[in-house]
C-alpha cells in the first residue's frame, strides 16, 4: 500500500518536474557556471570551452586534438613570412541569419586584441588584419610565429553587423565599469544556439539546424546547470536529474562505479603536476637558499617516492611523469620520461655534500582548491622530505590566497600544474615557465631562474616555421629543463567524467574539455 503511494507520488512529481518532451536532452551538471555569454570577457578556459558550442574559430581541434579547418577552409603563409592568408568557408550563417564574411573575422580579431580585452594574451603575435575580399583575410604578425593556428582555435568569431547594432564592437571593460550586450546575448555560427540563461542556475542551448558542418551528435538541447557541491552533483547524477558531469569527484568514484545506471569515463589529463623551487638569494626565513644548487634539487627529487604517491594518494589513477609535458603534447619524446630511483639514502648524502644544514626550514606552498588531491600529495611529499632531514613548513590555502604569495616570491617551494592550454604545444610551458623572466616570457617563472642557453633554444623555436625543426628545438629545451631539474615533475593527474545510461556516446578528451557535438543519447520516445 505504502509503496504504491510512493510510486504514485513519484510519477506525479516527475511528470510535473520535467515537462514531457520528445527531445534528446543532455543535462550537464558542471562543477561551476560560465562567467558570461561573452567568450572574450574573461580569461577563463571553462567559459571559452562551453561557449565553443555557440561560437567557432577559424580552426578547431578534431576528435584526436589535431588542428582542422573550421570557419577557415584553407590558409597559407605569404612570402614575407609574417602574413597569413586565410580562405574562409562560404555559405556559413550566424544564428541570426547574417552571412559570415571576412569583415566579421577582422572585427572579431580587433575586439579580442583590444587593449582592454582580457583575452589579448591568447593572441600574442597578432598585429593587424585586413579584408582582401569577402572570403579572404590577411593576418599580420609581429614576426615569424609558428603557433598562430593553435592560438586561433580559441578565438571565437562574432558577427560584425550584430556587434555594431548592439554597441558591442569593443570588449566589456571592468576597469571602466561598463557591461556589454554580449555578456547577456550570443550570436555565433556554432552547432548550438543559446536559448536562455539564468546565471548560476541554468543555461539552455538548442541545436542549430543550419550548422554548416554535418552533425555527428543527436542532441536537441543541452541544459547546463552548475552544481558546485560535489555531494549534490553525485546525488543528482544517481537520481538521474543530470545525465552528464565533467567533474566526477575522485572520492565518489567507487560509489558511482557501483551505481547501475552510471558509467564512468576515466582518463589521464594533459596537466602535468610539478614542484618548483626558489632560485633567489635567500629563503623566506632569511637563511641562504640552497635550492639553487642542483645537488639539492636532485636530493629532493630522489627523496620523493613517486610510486607510493601514485598508489596511495592518487589511487593508481595518475600517470607517473618524468617529463614536464604529457606524451600527447608535441615536443615530448619518450626518453624525457625516465624518473630517478627512489633513494632517500643517496638523497641524504647529496644534501650533506651540498652542505645543507640538518633541519633546514622552508615554506612549501600548496593549494586547497587546486590540483587533484593536492593537499594529500603535498602532505605526503612534506613527510618524505622530513625523512631526509629537512623541515618543510606546509602552507595550504585556497588559490585566491596563495596566488599573490607565489607571484611575488614570498614563498619557497610550490606546486604547479600546467596543461599547455589552449595551445596544446610544449612551447607554452617553455615560454611561460622555463624562460627567464623577460617581458612577456617567464610569467610563471616564480623561482626566478635564468638559463641563457635554454632561452636561446626557446626563442629560436618561437620563430621557427618548420614543424620538425621546431620540435627538435623544443625537445632539446625540455631535455635541458629535465637535466637541470628546474622543476620536479610528479604525474599527470587523473580526470573522470560520468554519464548515466541515457548517454550512448561521449568522447573523453585529455584536455578535459567536453565537446558535445560528438555526443549521442538514447533517442527520446
Amino acid at each position, binding site marked *: 500500500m505504502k509503496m504504491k503511494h*510512493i510510486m504514485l*507520488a*513519484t510519477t506525479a512529481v516527475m511528470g*510535473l*518536474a*520535467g515537462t514531457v518532451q520528445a527531445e534528446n536532452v543532455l543535462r550537464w*551538471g558542471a562543477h561551476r557556471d560560465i562567467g*558570461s555569454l*561573452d567568450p572574450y*570577457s*574573461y*580569461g*577563463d*578556459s571553462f567559459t571559452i570551452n562551453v561557449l565553443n558550442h555557440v561560437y567557432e574559430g577559424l580552426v578547431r581541434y578534431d576528435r584526436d586534438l589535431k588542428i582542422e579547418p573550421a570557419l577557415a577552409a584553407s590558409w597559407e603563409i605569404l612570402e614575407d613570412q609574417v602574413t597569413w592568408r586565410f580562405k574562409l568557408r562560404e555559405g556559413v550563417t550566424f544564428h541570426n541569419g547574417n552571412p559570415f564574411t571576412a569583415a566579421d573575422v577582422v572585427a572579431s580579431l580587433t575586439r579580442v586584441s583590444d*587593449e*582592454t580585452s*582580457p*583575452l*589579448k*594574451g*591568447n593572441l*600574442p603575435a597578432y598585429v593587424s588584419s585586413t579584408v582582401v575580399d569577402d572570403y579572404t583575410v590577411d593576418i599580420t604578425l609581429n614576426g615569424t610565429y609558428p603557433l598562430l593556428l593553435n*592560438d586561433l582555435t580559441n578565438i571565437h568569431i562574432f558577427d560584425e553587423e550584430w556587434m555594431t547594432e548592439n554597441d558591442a564592437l569593443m570588449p*566589456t571593460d*571592468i*576597469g571602466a*565599469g561598463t*557591461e556589454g550586450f554580449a*555578456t547577456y546575448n550570443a550570436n555565433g555560427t556554432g552547432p548550438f544556439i543559446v536559448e536562455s540563461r*539564468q*546565471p*548560476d*542556475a*541554468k543555461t539552455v542551448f538548442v541545436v542549430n539546424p543550419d550548422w554548416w558542418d554535418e552533425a555527428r551528435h543527436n542532441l536537441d538541447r543541452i541544459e547546463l546547470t*552548475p*552544481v*558546485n*557541491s560535489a*555531494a*549534490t552533483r553525485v*546525488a*543528482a547524477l*544517481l*537520481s538521474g*536529474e543530470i545525465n552528464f558531469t565533467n567533474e566526477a569527484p575522485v572520492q565518489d568514484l567507487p560509489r558511482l562505479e557501483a551505481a547501475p545506471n552510471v558509467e564512468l569515463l576515466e582518463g589521464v589529463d594533459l596537466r602535468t603536476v610539478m614542484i618548483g623551487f626558489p632560485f633567489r638569494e635567500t629563503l623566506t626565513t632569511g637563511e641562504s637558499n640552497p635550492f639553487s644548487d642542483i645537488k639539492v634539487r636532485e636530493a629532493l627529487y630522489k627523496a620523493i617516492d613517486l610510486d607510493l604517491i601514485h598508489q596511495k594518494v592518487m589511487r593508481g589513477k595518475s600517470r607517473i611523469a618524468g617529463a614536464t609535458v604529457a606524451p600527447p603534447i608535441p615536443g615530448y619524446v619518450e626518453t624525457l620520461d625516465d624518473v630517478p630511483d627512489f633513494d632517500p639514502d643517496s638523497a641524504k648524502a647529496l644534501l650533506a655534500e651540498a652542505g645543507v644544514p640538518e633541519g633546514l626550514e622552508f615554506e612549501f606552498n600548496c593549494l586547497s582548491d587546486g590540483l587533484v588531491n593536492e593537499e594529500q600529495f603535498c602532505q605526503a611529499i612534506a613527510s618524505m622530505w622530513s625523512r631526509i632531514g629537512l623541515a618543510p613548513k606546509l602552507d595550504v590555502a585556497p*588559490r*585566491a*590566497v596563495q*596566488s*599573490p604569495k607565489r*607571484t611575488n616570491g614570498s614563498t619557497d617551494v610550490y606546486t604547479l600544474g600546467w*596543461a599547455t*592550454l*589552449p*595551445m596544446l604545444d610544449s612551447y*607554452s610551458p617553455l615560454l611561460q615557465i622555463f624562460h627567464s623572466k623577460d*617581458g*612577456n616570457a*617567464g*610569467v610563471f617563472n616564480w623561482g626566478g631562474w635564468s638559463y641563457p642557453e635554454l632561452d636561446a633554444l626557446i626563442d629560436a623555436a618561437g620563430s621557427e616555421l618548420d614543424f620538425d625543426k621546431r620540435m627538435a628545438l623544443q625537445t632539446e629545451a625540455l631535455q635541458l629543463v629535465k637535466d637541470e631539474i628546474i622543476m620536479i615533475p610528479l604525474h599527470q593527474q587523473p580526470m573522470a567524467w560520468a554519464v548515466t545510461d541515457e548517454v550512448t556516446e561521449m568522447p573523453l578528451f585529455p584536455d578535459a574539455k567536453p565537446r558535445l557535438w560528438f555526443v549521442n543519447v538514447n533517442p527520446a520516445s
Partner: protein
Amino acid sequence: MIAFLLKRTANAVFVMLAVALLAFVIFRFFGDPVEMMVNEQATQADRVELRERLGLNDGFLTQYTRFVTNAVQGNFGISYRNQQDVMVLIQDRLPATFELVLVATVISLLVGIPLGVITAVYRDSRLANALQLGSIVGVSLPSFVVGILLILAFSVSLGLLPAFGRGETVDIGWWSTGFLTPSGRAALVLPAISLSTFQVTLVMRLVRAEMLETLRTDYIKFARARGVPTRRVQWRHALRNCLMPVITLTGMQIGNLIAFALVTETVFQWPGMGMLFIQAVTFVDIPVMAAYLMIVSFIFVALNTVVDITYAWVDPRLRDDTVRAGGANG
C-alpha cells in the same frame, strides 16, 4: 525626539562606514583578482595593465573613498567574474533567498508552535520526552548534514524531489518567483526543510517554556474553573499569550536565516544571495563580496534602528535614558 532621531541615524551611518571599512580591508587584502581573471597565456604586461585598470595600484585611501562614494549611490561597480552590474546580480538573487527564508519561517512556525504546545501540555509523557530529545538533535545537526541526508533520502533513494536548483520560475516584474510552477514548489521543499530544522527547534522550545509559564497563571486557572474546555484553554487562551515573544524571535531570526541560507544554498545549488557570495569568494570578486556584506549589514542596521526608534516612540522614558547615556559616554 529629534535629537534622539539624529543620534540614532548618526550611529547607523557610523556603523555602516565601519562595515564598509572592514569589508574593504578584508577583501582588498584577501587575494589577487588579477590572478583569477587571466589565463595561462596572459603575459606579464597584460597583468600589470589589468591591475592598473582595476585601480588596484591606487593608494588605500583613494580606493576606500571611491568605494564609499560609489556605494552611497548604490553603485557597487561591475562584477569581476561575470562582468555584470553587481546591484543587478544581487537583485536577481534576492527573490530566491527571500522565498526560501519565507518558506522556512512558515515551516518553523507551523511545526514548531504545535510541537511546543504538545510538549508543554503533556510535559511528562513519552511523546513529549521524545520530542525534547529530538529537538536536541535538531539544534546540533549542522544544516548541511541535514541537507545531504534529505537529498540522499528523497532524491537519490525515493526519487521524489529534486536535489538541486530552483525549478522553473515565473517573472513578475523584476521579481522571479518559484511559487507558481509545480517544479518551483517541488524544488523549494528540501532546502526549506533543511533551513528550518534549527528554527523549528528554537520555536518549539520557546513556546514550551512560555506555555509552562502561562499555564500556571491565574487567568488560566479561572478559565478552567469557569468550565472552558481544556483544549480551548490550552490552544486559545494560553497559546495566544505565548505568541508575542515568538513573533519577536521570528523577526529577529530573519537575519540569521539569511546567514544560514548561505550553507543551504550551497548544498542545494539554490541560486540565491548566499550562492552568489560563495562564488564571489572563490573568484576573489571583490565588488560582489563587498556589496553583499554592505547590503546585509544595511538590513541589520536599518532593522535595529527602526526597532530602537519605535521603542523610543512608544516609551518616552527609553528615549531620555538613551540620549543621556549616549551623551555621557560620548
